[in-house]
C-alpha cells in the first residue's frame, strides 16, 4: 500500500479489465442477444401485474383445458386459467429465485473458496471439511425443518437454496486459487509487498472470474430447477402461485393430452437458460485477463 507505484498499477489494470471486457462483450453478438433476452424477461416480470391479460387465479371450470386461441394466446390449464398470465407470473418467482439464490451462493462461495485456497494449510483443511459436512447433510430434512421452524416464506426458500448451492462454487474457486497462488504474477505481487487483501481482491478474484462466471451461469438454471423440484414435493412456493418449474412439472403429467401446458413454460425456461448460457460464455471470454494481453 505504501508503494505508490503498485497502487497505480493495480488500479489501471482493474479499470481496463472491465472496460476491455465490455468492449469485447459488445463484439459477441450471441452474448448480447442473451443479455437482451434476459433483460426482456426481467422487464416483463416486473410489469406483469399491469400487463397480464387475466388474473393469475382467475378460473373458468367450464372452459377447462383449451388449446391456444385468440382469447387465450397460449391456451388454458384444466381450471381454465390463462397460461400466458401464469407463465408471466411464474417468471417473477423463477427469475427472482434464480438471481437471488445464485447471488447468495456466489458471494459466500467465492469468499469462502478464495480464503480457503489462499490461506492453505490448516485453515483450508478446516474450511473445506466444513463444506464436506454441509454437502453430506440430508438436504430434504434441512428444508422441511426450515419451513416448519420459520414458516413458509419465499425469502427463506432463496436462502435455503443459496445455502446449498454455494458449496460447489467454493470448491471450484478454491481449486482455481490454489492453482494461481504459486504463479509468477502472484509471487511478484507478493514480493512487491502488497497486502493480502489487495492480492486477494485485485489479483486472485479477478483471475478466478472465468470459471466463476461459467459456474454461475450454470447455477442459475440449477437453482430454478431446484425450486421446481421443491415446489413439486410441496416444500416450495404455494399454489395458486406458480413458477416455470412448477408449471413444467405439472405439464409433464398431461403432456400427451394437453401438450401446450408443457411446451410453453418449457420454452420460456429453455430460452432463458440458453440466453444465460450464451451470456455466461461471452462474459467468460470477455473477462479472461490473459486474453486481454493479446
Amino acid at each position, binding site marked *: 500500500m505504501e508503494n505508490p507505484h503498485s497502487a497505480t498499477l493495480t488500479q489501471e489494470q482493474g479499470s481496463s479489465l472491465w472496460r476491455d471486457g465490455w468492449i469485447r462483450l459488445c463484439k*459477441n453478438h*450471441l452474448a448480447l442477444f442473451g443479455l437482451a433476452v434476459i433483460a426482456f424477461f426481467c422487464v416483463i416480470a416486473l410489469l406483469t401485474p399491469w400487463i397480464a391479460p387475466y388474473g393469475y387465479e382467475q378460473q373458468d371450470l367450464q372452459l377447462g383445458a383449451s388449446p391456444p386461441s385468440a382469447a387465450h394466446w397460449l391456451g388454458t390449464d384444466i381450471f381454465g386459467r390463462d397460461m400466458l398470465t401464469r407463465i408471466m407470473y411464474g417468471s417473477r418467482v423463477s427469475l427472482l429465485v434464480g438471481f437471488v439464490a445464485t447471488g447468495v451462493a456466489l458471494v459466500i462461495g467465492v469468499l469462502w473458496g478464495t480464503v480457503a485456497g489462499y490461506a*492453505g*494449510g490448516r485453515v483450508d*483443511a478446516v474450511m473445506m*471439511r466444513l463444506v*464436506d*459436512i454441509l*454437502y*453430506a*447433510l*440430508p438436504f*430434504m*430434512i*434441512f428444508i*422441511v*425443518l426450515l419451513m*416448519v421452524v420459520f414458516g413458509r416464506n419465499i425469502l427463506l426458500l432463496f436462502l435455503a437454496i443459496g445455502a446449498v448451492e454455494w458449496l*460447489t462454487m467454493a*470448491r*471450484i474457486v478454491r*481449486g482455481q486459487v*490454489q*492453482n494461481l497462488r*504459486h504463479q509468477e504474477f502472484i509471487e511478484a505481487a507478493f514480493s512487491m509487498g502488497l497486502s493480502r487483501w489487495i492480492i486477494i481482491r485485485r489479483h486472485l478474484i479477478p483471475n478466478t472470474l*472465468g*470459471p466463476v462466471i*461459467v459456474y454461475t*451461469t*450454470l447455477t442459475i*438454471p440449477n437453482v430454478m*430447477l431446484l425450486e*421446481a*423440484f421443491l415446489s*413439486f414435493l410441496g416444500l416450495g412456493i404455494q399454489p395458486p402461485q406458480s413458477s416455470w*418449474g412448477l408449471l*413444467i*412439472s405439472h405439464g*409433464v403429467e398431461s*403432456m*400427451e393430452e394437453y401438450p401446450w401446458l*408443457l411446451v410453453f413454460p*418449457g420454452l420460456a*425456461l*429453455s430460452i432463458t*437458460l*440458453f440466453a444465460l*448460457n450464451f451470456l*455466461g*460464455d461471452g462474459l*467468460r*471470454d470477455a473477462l*479472461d485477463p*490473459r*486474453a486481454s494481453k*493479446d
Partner: protein
Amino acid sequence: MLRFILSRLLQAIPVLLVVITATFLLVRCAPGGPFSAEKAVPPEVVRALEAQYRLDQPIWQQYLSYLGDLARGEFGPSFRYPGRTVNELIAGGLPITAELAFYAMLVAILIGVCAGVIAALRPNTPQDYLPMSAAMLGICMPSFLMGPLLVLVFGIWLEWLPVSGWGELAGDKILPAITLGTGYAAYIARLSRGGMLEVMSQDYIRTARAKGLPERVVVLKHALRGGLIPVVAFLGPAFAGLLSGSFVVETIFQIPGLGRFYVQAAFNRDYTMILGTTVFFATLIVLFNLLADIIAVWINPKMRHQLSRSR
C-alpha cells in the same frame, strides 16, 4: 503423497462425526414420527413400537447406542420396512445406483468432453456454438422433463426401448442413463471448454505450436491434460451427486436404487434409514472429493511440487 492421503482420511473422521450428530438431531426435530399414519395409531401400539426401536430411551442414550452400532458397521433396522435392516437395503440399492451412475457418467463425459474440446478449438464460430448448444439441451431440460419425453418417443411411439424397470428387459438401462447423464454433459462441456480455452492461450501451447507440432498433437498431447483439470475436479462431486441425485430418474423409471431410498426415507421419517444413507453418502462424498484432489495433483505436476514443499 501418502501423508497427504492419510491426513485427509484422518480429517474425515471428525467430519463424519459432525454429520452423524447433526443428522441425528435434525431428523428428531422434524415434525411427524416414523409411525404416524392417517388412521390414528392407538397409544399402546405407539408405546410398543417405541420400545422395540429404543425410541423410549433418553435421546443421548439413543445416540450413544447408535454410535455403538455404527462402530460395528450396523445401521440398525429400517422403521419403514420392519423386516429389513438398513444395511440390507443399502446393499440392495447400491449396485443398481452405482451402475446407473456409471453409465450416466460415461454418457456425460463422452458428450461433454467432445463438445467442449471441439468448441474450444474455434471459439465464437459455429464450430463453438453448435456443439455447445447441443450439450446445453441437457441442462435446459430438467430430468423430470427429459425422462418422460424420451419415454414418450422411444418407449411409446417408436417402441424401441422399455418404459421402465432396471435389468428386467433388454435395453431398459439406456433411457435412464441418458436422462441422468445429459444433465451433467452440459456442465462437463462448459468446464472443459473453459479449461481448454484457458490452456490454449498459455505460453507452453504457443511454444508447442511454434515448434511446428501438428494441431492434433498439440491438443491431444499437451492441451487436454491441463484443460481437463476443472473437469476432473468436478468429477468427484459429480459422481457423488449422481449417486445421491438419481432420485428423479429412479422415480420416473421405477428403478429400485439408493437415490429413491434417500429421499423417501426423509419423507417417511425412517430415522435409521435417513442416518444410514446420510452416513453412507457422506463417506462417499469425502472419498470422492479426496480422489478428485489426488487426481488433480497427479495431472498437474506444479501442484505436486507445492504439496511436497508445503508439508
